[in-house]
């Protein structure tokens, strides 16, 4: 177990260091988030639709697309210089490779979300201070789920044509249950509803995470073995 974590951290750290040096994916994702939020704001008539109606959806669409951007880079950079083969030949276990990638992906998405959420509060003039902790909790729960599946699938598509597009298409159905839960809970939180009203959706998110993180972690070895 400790060995697994150590190896996973080694993989994650490599990705994080690489990204910190170039910052391309992060910057793109952050800029993209700001762009989308701005666009949504200008796309609507502020007098017609109460902000609170659309706000959760806008937030989650933005977060999801930004997450997709970071997922796409997960294995792409391994293709250069046959880095992937190098990783596989090393004594690294397949599972720790997955966890390393997952941790790195989650870290990237966390940064993007950390920038996106304040922007969202700013542009949409919603108050989140009272519900910040549960909101962050929901964001974490939902994001873990679809990034876990997305990390697995990004390994599936690396050698295919139109990999980024294919990734989005196969990931889409897997995004829906956690997103439904996330949007519904976010909506209730922003509307000041008690957390007890969201219990069903929270259980959905938790169950999804447990099932798919384990499943993805287990199935990963079949995507990279020859």
């Amino acid at each position, binding site marked *: 177990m400790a060995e697994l974590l150590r190896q996973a951290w080694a993989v994650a750290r490599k990705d994080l260091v690489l990204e910190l040096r170039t910052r391309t994916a992060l910057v793109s994702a952050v800029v993209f988030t700001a762009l989308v939020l701005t666009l949504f704001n200008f796309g609507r008539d502020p007098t017609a639709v109460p902000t609170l109606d659309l706000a959760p959806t806008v937030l989650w669409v933005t977060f999801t697309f930004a997450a997709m951007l970071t997922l796409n880079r997960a294995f792409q950079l391994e293709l250069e210089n046959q880095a992937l083969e190098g990783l596989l030949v090393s004594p690294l276990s397949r599972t720790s490779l997955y966890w390393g990638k997952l941790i790195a992906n989650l870290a990237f998405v966390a940064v993007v979300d950390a920038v996106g959420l304040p922007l969202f509060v700013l542009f949409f003039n919603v108050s989140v201070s009272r519900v910040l902790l549960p909101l962050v909790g929901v964001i974490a729960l939902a994001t873990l789920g679809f990034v876990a599946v997305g990390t697995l699938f990004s390994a599936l598509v690396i*050698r295919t044509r*139109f990999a980024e597009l294919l990734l989005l*298409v*196969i990931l889409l159905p897997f995004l829906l*249950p956690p997103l439904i839960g996330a949007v519904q809970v976010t909506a209730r939180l922003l509307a000041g509803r008690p957390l007890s009203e969201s219990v069903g959706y929270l259980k959905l998110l938790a169950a999804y995470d447990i099932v798919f993180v384990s*499943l993805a972690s287990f199935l990963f070895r079949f995507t990279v073995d020859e």
Partner: protein
Amino acid sequence: MSLVRRGRWITLVALVLLAGVYVRALAFTPIERLQGPAQKIFYLHVPAAIWTEAAMILVGLAGIFFLFLGDPRLDRFAEASAEVGTVFATIVLTTGPIWGKPIWGTWWTWDARLTSTLFLFFLYLGYLLVRGAVRDPGLRARYAAVLGICGMCLVPFIHLSVYLFRTLHPQPIILKPSGPSLPDSMLVTWLFSLLAFTLLYVGFVTQRYAVSLARDARETAAAEHG
């Protein structure tokens, strides 16, 4: 009898049975008083929906066994089941709106069955796209199995999220296709239709499997002599 001929015979029997169902449903089953003749779409829509989902579960199960046993027959079966499942999903997604328009006044409603089938349709699409995008047969089979297993595991979450959405968002009273309980005459028609669709699944999958078998044999022969 060769696989193809067996498949053709089963399909023929199924189509004849379906014709009988058509006659019985259209001419010899009573019209439902509240919904009118359009209710009879139910006899095609629901069995198709059942097999859309069953086919996905079978794709997933075949994937699990394939990953552990490595038998290419399981992969061929999964491929066949996915294609047939997609055809049935198309039936559900076309008859659903045609039924919905006169009954609910709108082409699309996010009702449980239609929404679940839409998710399943996206799952099938992704599965078939991945199969098409990976050239190497061994890799293709493994990737497809991974995706199929994830798809199968997603099915309960699809149902859960749709269920939560609908119970926490009361819909206008939906006219149930059967009213308080299904009268015998309607039940018999429905059961015959289910039987017809079951046979259609078996017949179609058998033929489609034979097509995959022949293609695999050609690929192996080409690889050996190439």
